[in-house]
């Protein structure tokens, strides 16, 4: 009975970074950013190849995270410089990162089972508990998320963060205040895609390999997680950016635990995407009936 909870919690905590990336870009920058699907495997690829070829784990992690940032900045740049639709800009960068990740890895996957990972440090804690529950892994991932959320929320509450949020919330108003909207969009997307790349790094460490298809399906699951999270959390009582961030984390965990139990109950893995899509639609439909104003229009 505990096994699906264990799997769900760990996957939810690993992918929460990617969900945050999508949610922050979508809600705070008004940018439905598809790049996440490419920056996640790019981060994994860069980490795997650097770590495999001798770079220390922290160094490989830093470069991997930055590679995601570059992908995000590129999406923003393409959108602003060529006035290309936000979706199309994202699709182009996802295509670029796919080939790039393959080039970087030189193969469609790289094994990392012998390599050191952050999870090595908590292995003693894992073995202290029954085999079906990886307490150490969960504690470590929660600690990462708390630290990361704290940094993000602090950043968003500084004057630069407030300017960034104004640029996303109302570009006309931001312009009237002399805020450089394009630079803020590019910087914002760079930051959110760093988060997605970090998700890729953690996933590759946890699974013991980096794979080119890691990003597949991340968008729909992140959308589902975000939608569920925003349903679960009371919106009115939190500052908007705190709400968005907490909803992403909570939604990611809830969604993955749900999926883990659904698979245990007999849902075929092949039907997972369909089930996810239906779940998103149901949540959205239910939200509309409750007179929530959030998902349909972020701006009114």
């Amino acid at each position, binding site marked *: 009975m505990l096994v699906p909870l264990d799997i769900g919690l760990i996957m939810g905590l690993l992918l929460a970074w990617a969900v945050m990336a999508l949610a922050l870009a979508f809600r705070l920058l008004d940018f439905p950013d598809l790049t996440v699907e490419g920056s996640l495997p790019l981060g994994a690829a860069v980490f795997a190849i650097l770590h495999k070829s001798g770079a220390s784990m922290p160094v490989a992690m830093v470069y991997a995270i930055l590679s995601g940032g570059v992908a995000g900045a590129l999406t923003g740049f393409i959108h602003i410089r060529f006035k290309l639709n936000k979706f199309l800009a994202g699709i182009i960068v996802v295509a670029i990162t796919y080939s790039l990740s393959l080039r970087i890895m030189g193969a469609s996957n790289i094994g990392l089972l012998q390599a050191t990972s952050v999870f090595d440090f908590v292995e003693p804690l894992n073995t202290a508990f029954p085999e079906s529950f990886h307490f150490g892994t969960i504690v470590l991932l929660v600690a990462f998320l708390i630290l990361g959320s704290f940094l993000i929320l602090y950043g968003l509450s500084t*004057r630069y963060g*407030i300017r960034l949020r*104004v640029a996303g919330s109302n570009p006309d108003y931001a*312009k009237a*205040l*002399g805020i450089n909207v394009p630079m803020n969009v590019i910087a914002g997307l760079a930051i959110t895609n760093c988060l997605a790349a970090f998700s890729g790094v953690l996933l590759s460490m946890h699974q013991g390999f980096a794979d080119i298809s890691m990003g597949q399906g991340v968008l729909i699951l992140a959308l589902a997680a975000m939608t569920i999270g925003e349903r679960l959390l009371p919106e009115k009582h939190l500052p908007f950016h705190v709400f968005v961030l907490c909803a992403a984390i909570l939604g990611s965990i809830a969604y993955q635990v749900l999926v883990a139990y659904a698979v245990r109950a007999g849902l075929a893995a092949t039907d997972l995407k369909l089930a996810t899509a239906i779940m998103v639609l149901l949540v959205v439909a239910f939200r509309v009936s409750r007179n929530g104003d959030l998902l349909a229009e972020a701006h009114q």
Partner: protein
Amino acid sequence: MSTHKGTIEIKGLTVTFSRWRQTVKAIEGVNLTVPAGQWMVVVGHNGSGKSTLLRAISGLLTPNGGEIRIDGDSLGGLSSAQVAERVFHVHQDPLLGTAPTLTLFENLFVADAAAQNGGASRNDLLDKYSDLLRPLGLADRLKQLARYLSGGERQLLALTVARLRPAAVMLLDEPLAALDPVKAELCLEQIKALNDEGKTILQVTHDPNLAISAGDRTLVLRQGRFAYDEVGDRREADSLRKAWSLDAGGGISIWKK
């Protein structure tokens, strides 16, 4: 905040819009000087070029001809950040003038250049913003998101934002258009407060009655040109009506007795 700044000089300003093969002249060779600290009301019909004039002065569109100078410096030579230090534009649509997903406090803080350069503590700022919002009945809502305000309240917030800007020129695009009489009165008080602080005001309106009662100077814009320009007590209804309503729908009286 210096009170002598805020002079607008416009020479030969022309703005045209082309669509397909048709060219529409929105502003046609307009000359205008607004001295620092003056409150000028521009009145005209829909499509007379009022909003286009404001958009040109705030740098949101590039004119096809002529020159705009703010405090002697040509607008074309200023970066958008420099323009924002001299000119602040309050939009016609109250929803455009504030950031909906930020709190009232954050909306005011982001406009408050002085506060962002450091110094004041959060509590000082809370007091300062509460004082500004108190007459508008919004003082206890500083921690709410702006999107929970009504349209009229958001317009009041937008004008409060204007009071925190360093800019000496305030461009107000029909700030009272969507407001009930009480809110309109509060808004006018905010505009008066701005003017009392030494700001140059360029206020656009549809309402000829307001045009003659508010501000120091009234200008009628008709088909991209000035048809009337009078100051203070010399403004009177008959001549304004003539200038304003030559091409208006005949016989409809919109004038107060």
